């Protein structure tokens, strides 16, 4: 059987197919079909020839086999330093062999590649910083994922994830109506406490267009409310688009490049429709990577920039605190040892290492912030990046991967971890669940709201009178 009903080379394009695949609990049938999936070697080789240019070719060729990348990889470190976890080995034995064999590889080989690409690499890009030749194996694994996806060799959850993005243009089944309703509901829900609170939808020519992660409207709508509250208190002229509000990209984790392009164009068309001065994304790492860092290239924008300046939430927050739009009540600052998780997707991949620390300088009592070691662009992946968090089949490997972050957090002695990234936040939550080290974790929004010095006119009437 060359192609399965659920596991095949065709991306999920319809709601019907999506539901059918979702109904296959745990991907039981999907993975059985995977065992019989044929490799289209001609297509694979044609694809490699068309997309593997001098950068990647050179990376594969000039790797000096020096092994210096080994220690840079947290998965190598936590898995007993077995040589099979050396980044160079991982990429040479998968993509390297695939290229050498001109795509003439079999099902077993592709399944090995699949496991390596999604369970032995989170595409954190750390190895690229430690290779003397500047070989970024994270970039190559991302490329390999695309090749594997095009052949149908992708974990069940990511096939579905990319399907969600194709069908709903969101990582979850949140429709335009659901989203708009959630915004209205959240505005109403919090109006009493925050008089005048609004979530303006499709307002044209606003200063800010806000975009988020579908999980927020779906699972924690209070996050949408918190964003609204902070914009409201800061006095921003802002809006959310009814279409093009979702900026995440499980399709990027899956390697579904066609879908990545479609989704980012959807966000950019919202920008073109509403003409905001700039766009701001939520506290998510990969969403920022997809929409702001890689997105312009998928969309074919030659300058590598989104249509308007598009910043991460931490950049806006730092700016709002710096300019005094948001004021912190010094008495309410964090007065316990607290550490910060640097997200690979916007720290190593866009250098946003100083703004988060600037934010902490406002919200943490001096002396209580403890850096992880290493930190900033040298920080390790949370353990759940690149889609790792969501793949049931690789749960044991993912839990092992969390150990590096656990060691780092334990070494700081902190019980509170600030994680301004959905993936990191999830991984740290799971690490507490798995290893019970007694920590708490938080996004920035709820922390900041809890310590705001709210101007008189924005407070609820009765509370204002009481004071």
């Amino acid at each position, binding site marked *: 059987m060359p192609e399965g009903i659920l596991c095949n080379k065709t991306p999920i394009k319809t709601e019907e197919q999506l539901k059918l695949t979702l109904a296959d609990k745990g991907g039981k049938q999907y993975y059985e079909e995977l065992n019989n999936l044929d490799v289209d070697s001609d297509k694979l080789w044609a694809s490699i020839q068309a*997309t593997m*240019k*001098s*950068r990647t*070719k*050179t*990376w594969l*060729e*000039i*790797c*000096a*086999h*020096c*092994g*210096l990348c*080994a*220690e*840079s990889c947290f998965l*190598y470190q936590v898995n007993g*330093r*077995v*040589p*099979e976890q*050396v980044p*160079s*080995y991982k990429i*040479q034995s998968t993509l390297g062999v695939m290229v050498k064999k001109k795509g003439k590889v079999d099902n077993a080989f592709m399944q090995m590649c699949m496991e390596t690409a999604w369970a032995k690499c989170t595409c954190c890009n750390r190895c*690229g*910083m*430690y*290779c*003397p*030749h*500047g*070989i*970024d194996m994270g970039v190559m694994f991302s490329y390999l994922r695309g090749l594997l996806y095009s052949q149908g060799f992708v974990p069940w959850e990511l096939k579905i994830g990319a399907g969600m993005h194709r069908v709903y243009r969101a990582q979850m089944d949140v429709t335009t109506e659901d989203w708009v309703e959630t915004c209205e509901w959240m505005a109403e829900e919090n109006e009493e406490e925050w008089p005048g609170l609004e979530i303006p939808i499709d307002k044209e020519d606003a200063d800010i267009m806000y975009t988020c992660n579908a999980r927020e409207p779906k699972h924690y709508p209070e996050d949408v409310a918190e964003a609204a509250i902070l914009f409201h208190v800061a006095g921003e002229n802002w809006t959310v688009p009814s279409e093009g509000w979702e900026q995440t990209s499980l399709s990027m984790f899956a390697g579904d490049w066609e879908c990545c392009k479609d989704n980012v164009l959807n966000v950019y068309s919202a920008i073109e429709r509403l003409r905001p001065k700039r766009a701001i994304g939520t506290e998510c790492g990969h969403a920022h990577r997809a929409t702001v*860092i*890689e997105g*312009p*290239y998928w969309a*074919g924008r*030659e*300058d*590598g*920039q989104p249509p308007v300046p598009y910043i991460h939430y931490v950049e806006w927050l730092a700016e709002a605190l710096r300019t005094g739009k948001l004021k912190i009540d010094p008495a309410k600052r964090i007065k316990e040892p607290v550490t910060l998780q640097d997200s690979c997707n916007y720290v*190593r*991949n*866009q*250098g*946003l*290492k*100083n703004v988060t620390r600037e934010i902490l300088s406002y919200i943490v009592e001096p002396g209580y912030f403890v850096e992880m070691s290493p930190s*900033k*662009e*040298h920080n390790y992946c949370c353990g759940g990046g690149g889609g790792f968090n969501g793949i049931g089949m690789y749960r044991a490997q993912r839990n092992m991967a969390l150990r590096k972050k656990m060691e780092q957090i334990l070494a700081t002695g902190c019980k509170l971890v600030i994680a301004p990234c959905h993936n990191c936040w999830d991984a740290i939550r799971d690490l507490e669940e798995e290893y019970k080290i007694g920590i708490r974790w938080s996004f920035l929004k709820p922390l900041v709201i809890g310590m705001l010095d709210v101007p008189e006119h924005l407070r609820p009437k009765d509370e204002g009178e009481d004071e």
Partner: protein
Amino acid sequence: MYDFLTGPVLWATFLISFGGLIVRAVLYVRGLDWRLDRVAYRPNLKYGIRGGLRSIVAFLIPFKARLWQTRPGFTLIFFAFHIGLLVTPIFLEAHNVMLKQAFGFSLPAMPTGLADGLAWVCLVGGLFLALRRIAFPEVRIITNFYDYLLLVISVLPFATGLIARYELGAYDFWLCAHILSGEIWLICLPFTKLSHVILFFLSRMQLGMDYGIKRGGMKGTDMAW
């Protein structure tokens, strides 16, 4: 034999070696693709060049990049090996005599003792690089025959050169062996992994441009290599 090896063969060698390396460099740059690499090289060239140069310099200077700091022993051997490999042939007195005869000019020659020392450094360094391939599991798993062959090709001119210099055997034979092995090394440069003599710079430049343009440079933060 000597005249033949230092005449037409040497000319052909230089042509193939340096010509080949230039071709490799040109092909590399032409093969860069802003869309596939996802780096807007051209519109942001200034940021790119800045990032690229930072990336090269960080790895060119011993102990500058974090990698070099984390592995001091390796760093010492590695740099000594590469410095010996490059400096010795260029500033060796005997080579410069030939240069003078052919073109009427020469580079400053280094003292014989220093040249001997550097040649030994290359041999011992090469030996260490081979031994670590055997000793460390993380290196052994990615090592193949080709890696040893390239090490041999790279140190052979030094081994034969020292034998000739100490006149340990038939001088003429070892001199010719030395010249031949040097020529083999030169010819191998463009066709093997030794092409990193040029591709190191280009590959580092590329990743540096990536960081200088897309991954932080344009946000005003420099990568701390």
